[in-house]
């Protein structure tokens, strides 16, 4: 399962979040994120401050951008503190740049018909506006397509992964040296996909990966197969088993599948772990990492 080939501009890095691709300078990092597919926001920052907000919102239909921008500008012009107001039009993007007090911003919006989604980008310019960069970021925003296998691609926090379209992003944890994204099915309670990337490994991993993986399995999991495989030139510890189903199905001693794989990525020294439960078909996911596009 290899994603669509995406050209990433030099000095930029690709993020894929909520089925949108966006490229930002490679020294910017995503610091805040939204999980709600209907409306949310991600914030990117450089070393010193927030630089870009990426906001999405599902709307009933294509908005009247001209009217919306005029309303916006009218509101801005009422304020004496607002200076350097100028319109921005680039392809389907439209917006304006303005200085509010000391803060220089560019705000652009665009409607994406496939998802009926209104996307807004707000750039913060601490020194001066970089029109080239603004243009590159705007041009990079695209809708991501579902893979033929029925998975969505996500790329953030050092993970480039494919999660089943049956599942939605349920939890996301980002701590120092730990990124974890949990996808859960709203229809099928047992169906959960967890992707983890762990750093500072030398500080806490003092046993072989296989042993670590076996020890961290949830209570109630019966391991049927415990194998070491080689995939993408990496040694992968793989546990296959099952566990008692949850809810009323437990009363009938129904069991559900458990599949967990962990591997050390020799390129970045991180420990990766992928756990998929409740799948009705064998899991054939590609190992995830921060791959070249």
């Amino acid at each position, binding site marked *: 399962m290899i994603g669509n080939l995406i050209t990433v501009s030099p000095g930029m890095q690709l993020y894929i979040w909520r089925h949108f691709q966006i490229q930002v300078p490679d020294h910017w990092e995503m610091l805040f994120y939204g999980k709600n597919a209907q409306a949310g926001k991600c914030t990117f920052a450089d070393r010193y401050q*927030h630089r870009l907000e990426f906001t999405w919102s599902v709307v009933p239909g294509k908005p009247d951008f001209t009217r919306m921008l005029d309303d916006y500008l009218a509101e801005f012009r009422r304020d004496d503190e607002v200076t350097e107001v100028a319109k921005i039009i680039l392809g389907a993007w439209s917006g304006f740049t303005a200085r509010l007090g000391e803060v220089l*911003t560019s705000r652009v919006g665009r409607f994406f018909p496939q998802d009926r989604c209104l996307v807004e980008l707000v750039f913060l310019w601490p020194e001066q506006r970089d029109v080239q960069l603004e243009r590159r970021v705007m041009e990079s925003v695209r809708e991501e397509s579902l893979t033929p296998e029925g998975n969505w691609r996500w790329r953030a926090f050092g993970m480039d992964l494919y999660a089943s379209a049956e599942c939605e992003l349920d939890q996301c944890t980002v701590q120092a040296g730990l990124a974890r994204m949990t996808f859960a099915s709203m229809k099928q309670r047992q169906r959960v996909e967890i992707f983890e990337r762990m750093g500072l490994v030398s500080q806490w991993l003092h046993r072989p990966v296989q042993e670590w993986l076996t020890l961290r399995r949830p209570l109630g999991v019966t391991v049927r197969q415990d194998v070491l495989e080689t995939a993408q030139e990496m040694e992968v510890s793989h546990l296959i088993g099952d566990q008692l189903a949850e809810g009323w199905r437990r009363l009938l001693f129904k069991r559900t599948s458990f599949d967990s794989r962990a591997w050390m990525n020799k390129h970045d020294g991180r420990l990766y772990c992928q756990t998929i439960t409740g799948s009705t078909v064998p899991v054939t996911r590609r190992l995830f990492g921060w791959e070249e596009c």
Partner: protein
Amino acid sequence: MGAKKAVLPHLSVQQVSWRKMLEATPLRNMAASVYREKNGLVVLTVPLQHPWWQFPPITWVIKLDTERKVRLDEIGTELWEQSDGSRTVEEIIEAFSVRYALTFHEARLSVTGHLKQLIQRSVLVIQQNIE
């Protein structure tokens, strides 16, 4: 949740910056005495200030600690060693991110979390650059 009316979400934008924090310099508590264990980890004994009411005969009844022992873990020891006044928080984060192959913000989270704990335990203080 259903679809919402089409409006661009917000007008005001906060300029969130942590530059001042990065420019600050952590310094060791010079009053603390240092003991290094065989494994290289540092144990500090930090003298505690006496409260104003601590005098006899109260001290005959209530015994208060006069010092606090703080045993640093590997990362704590590393940060304490680097906090000699010659490096800013940013430089310490930079070195930490290289050593543990973390991104700058991953390292920032870890380093500032540790520094906060060390400051709360009076092991370090932060000197703000006032320029």
